[in-house]
């Protein structure tokens, strides 16, 4: 395969000349200005062998491209040769400072251009190969051991009947304790890679339990002395299993796992088992894991005990209730209460692995003094291909924003969907973006992203987008990208926008359903009240009437014909009610055989209710159905739901006593009558 070269020059002729000089031996990609160059770099950086870069260009000049290459770390990956007609020494100086490798002056000479290109590419290729070699080893080793250990520990937890979190927790605590320990002392000479190795191997600490009888292992009560003696053999069993491995015995991971398995029940004062080692005779790996094991056992819930708080657990451990530990480790434990709590709450398997892998490769690269290796970039590139594929399948709108240069790039599908360009420079001032999001919304999104922290970089907000003439709800989720510096800097955002319009409508539909009585489809008590109060609030000057009614002798119908029939009668009444009032009126079922109607009226409300009463009553399956109605008017009671309801209820009561099957309007005289009645009861 030919190496790829990116030629960046705004003059088509200059690109063409270089293209002719180089095309026999290289594959050429061209870019006509700085913005296009950054875009090509983004797409092809892992494949590029060289960039030939002009300085004076429209949109973004060559210095801008170099700055972007620095920001993204590409400058360590791809060599850059400047090809500008600019030959002033300040320009050249600045280009070199920004990481350019070489400078070819104009006019171009075929032989010189070819020779320089070959030299530069060869030099870089060699350096890259060296870096790859180291990185590949680290990566492969990590990946494989992580995978195997995940499987193994899962099996272990399954058999031990543990919560499934113990091994994960021990691993996290081990990691935290070790990180803290390295800050306190150089005594153990631990590198990042060692810490990762020990944390990984910690997952195997109880592997010997596989050799313990399940009856003892999962016994709910206290173990007898004899059973406990058997239980204690698990550390030796585990260690033997590992030392008996037919292969890999020289692997550091295997050696560490052996230490941890055998000695994670040793104690600093020599009172542990199986070998009674003392102090730093116990390898630091086993010391840390034993403390982590005890700590997690205390702070987790078990069948026989509640979880202790961090403080209580530390107090018990420091008080010697679980044996003696390395005092330095106890300090680490005491000083990091908050960290322990949050890490254990938040942690998941994935988090840890990502964090670890990143810092290990960083360490490797620091040692090598180079940039990110081609291998990593190839992996990242594959990741990108995968993401693009999934995004296109999911028809998601994905975007990426970088602060310097201020540039928003959209996934191909997303750009098409939104009718925007794939690359938008300076989105804060982009008119089309404003038209889509609403003015100032981009600033709102970026401000929210800036307000996050490296620990919690996600934001979520919902926005109305104007797409192709229609307005739809979108949910926008972003993850801010922070630099790894001690004072993290905001570098940009990745994010996705999802159309949630349909699911939002669905939610509203569900809400409506919840507001209705399932048998009759009428409003239930709470939502009827809500609508009534809304109507009175929005039309305070109107006249309203509230009617409560129930079916006369409904109990009899139920008793004689059964509940099924009762339900049918209720449906019959509901249907009549709905048909006899206007759509803007409110009708509801209060439960049982009790109903409600709420009307706005201008004149002659008595006639209206006579008509309604008549159309509600009728004959259902040879059974005469009648209702009694109590009505209260807002002109008497005011726009007060409680008062109206109470009055209508009183009128209904009055009507029942007065012979049923009628409409009864509330008046003051009922008040005294009701009071006497209440007194009688």
């Amino acid at each position, binding site marked *: 395969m030919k190496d790829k070269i990116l030629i960046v020059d705004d003059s088509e*002729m200059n690109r063409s000349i270089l293209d*002719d000089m180089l095309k026999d031996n290289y594959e050429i990609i061209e870019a006509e200005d700085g913005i296009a160059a950054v875009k090509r770099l983004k797409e092809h950086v892992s494949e590029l062998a060289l960039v030939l870069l*002009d300085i*004076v260009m429209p949109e973004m000049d060559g210095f801008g491209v170099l700055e972007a290459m620095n920001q993204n770390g590409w400058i360590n990956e791809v060599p850059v040769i400047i090809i500008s*007609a*600019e030959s002033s020494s300040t320009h050249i100086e600045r280009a070199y400072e920004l990481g350019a490798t070489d400078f070819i002056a*104009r*006019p171009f*000479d075929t032989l010189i251009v070819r020779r320089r290109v070959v030299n530069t590419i060869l030099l870089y290729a060699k350096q890259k190969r060296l870096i790859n070699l180291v990185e590949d080893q680290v990566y492969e080793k990590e990946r494989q051991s992580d995978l195997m250990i995940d499987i193994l520990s899962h099996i272990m937890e399954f058999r031990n009947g543990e919560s499934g979190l113990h091994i994960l927790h021990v691993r996290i605590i081990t990691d935290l304790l070790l990180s803290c320990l390295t800050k306190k002392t150089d005594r153990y000479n631990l590198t990042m890679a060692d810490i990762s190795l020990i944390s990984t191997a910690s997952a195997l600490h109880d592997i010997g339990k596989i050799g313990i009888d399940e009856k003892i292992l999962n016994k709910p009560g206290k173990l007898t002395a004899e059973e406990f003696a058997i239980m204690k053999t698990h550390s030796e069993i585990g260690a033997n299993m590992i030392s008996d491995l037919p292969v890999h015995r020289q692997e550091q991971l295997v050696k560490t796992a052996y230490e941890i398995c055998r000695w994670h029940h040793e104690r600093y004062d020599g009172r542990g088992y199986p070998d009674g080692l003392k102090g730093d005779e116990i390898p630091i790996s086993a010391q840390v894991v034993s403390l982590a094991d005890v700590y997690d056992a205390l702070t987790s819930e078990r069948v026989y005990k509640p979880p202790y708080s961090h403080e209580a657990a530390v107090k018990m451990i420091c008080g010697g209730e679980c044996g003696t530990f390395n005092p330095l480790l106890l300090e680490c434990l005491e000083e990091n209460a908050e960290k322990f709590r949050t890490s254990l709450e938040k942690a998941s398997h994935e988090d840890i692995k990502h964090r670890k892998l990143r810092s290990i490769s960083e360490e490797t690269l620091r040692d090598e003094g180079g940039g990110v290796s081609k291998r990593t970039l190839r992996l990242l590139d594959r990741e990108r291909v995968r993401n693009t594929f999934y995004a296109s399948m999911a028809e998601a709108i994905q975007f990426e924003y970088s602060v310097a240069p201020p540039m928003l790039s959209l996934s191909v599908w997303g750009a098409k969907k939104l009718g925007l360009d794939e690359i938008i420079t300076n989105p804060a001032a982009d008119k089309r973006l404003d038209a889509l999001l609403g003015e100032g919304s981009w600033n709102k999104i970026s401000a929210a992203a800036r307000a996050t922290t490296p620990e919690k970089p996600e934001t979520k907000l919902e926005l109305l987008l104007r797409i192709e003439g229609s307005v739809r709800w979108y949910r926008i989720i972003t993850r801010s990208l922070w630099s790894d510096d001690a004072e993290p800097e905001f570098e940009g955002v990745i994010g996705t926008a999802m159309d949630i319009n349909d699911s939002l409508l669905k939610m509203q539909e569900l809400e409506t359903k919840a507001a209705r009585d399932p048998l009759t489809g009428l409003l239930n008590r709470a939502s009827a009240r809500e609508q009534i109060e809304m109507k009175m609030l929005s039309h305070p000057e109107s006249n309203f009437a509230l009617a409560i009614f129930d079916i006369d002798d409904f109990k009899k119908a139920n008793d004689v014909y059964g509940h099924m029939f009762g339900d049918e009668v209720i449906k019959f009444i509901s249907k009549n009610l709905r048909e006899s009032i206007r759509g803007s009126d409110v009708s509801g079922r209060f439960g049982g055989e009790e109903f409600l109607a709420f009307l706005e009226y201008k004149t002659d409300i008595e006639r209206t209710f006579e008509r309604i009463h008549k159309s509600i009553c009728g004959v259902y399956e040879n059974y005469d159905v009648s209702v009694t109605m109590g009505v209260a008017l807002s002109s008497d009671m005011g726009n007060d739901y409680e008062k109206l309801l109470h009055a209508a209820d009183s009128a209904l009561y009055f009507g029942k006593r007065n012979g049923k099957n009628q409409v009864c309007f509330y008046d003051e005289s009922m008040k005294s009558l009701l009071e006497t009645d209440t007194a009688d009861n």
Partner: protein
Amino acid sequence: MTLEACYAAMGADYSDVLSRLRSERLIQKFVLKFLDDKSFELLSSSLESGSYEEAFRASHTIKGMCQNLSFTTLMHSSSELTEALRNGPTPEVPSLFEKVSADYEMTVSAIRAYQSELGA
């Protein structure tokens, strides 16, 4: 008319370009391409509208192409104009532009003459 005669007619250095690009075919290709380049129009229009940054870039592009093609005469005049525009326009810009226009005209008509004979 040979390519060499065309170079002579526009005050350009044929032996220089041949020593660098090493192929008459290539040189011919790029010389003809020069006719399609829009930088001169961009230079005129941006000077007219007072967009001096744009004018600088256009002039710079012309200079770069001339360097590559050894169009010595136009290279000198466009190079001077480029410098006059680099840090905002100097009073010499109009007269320098006149010189560039004349040289450009000369260059382009020499190429056209060469081109028409090619077609014949």
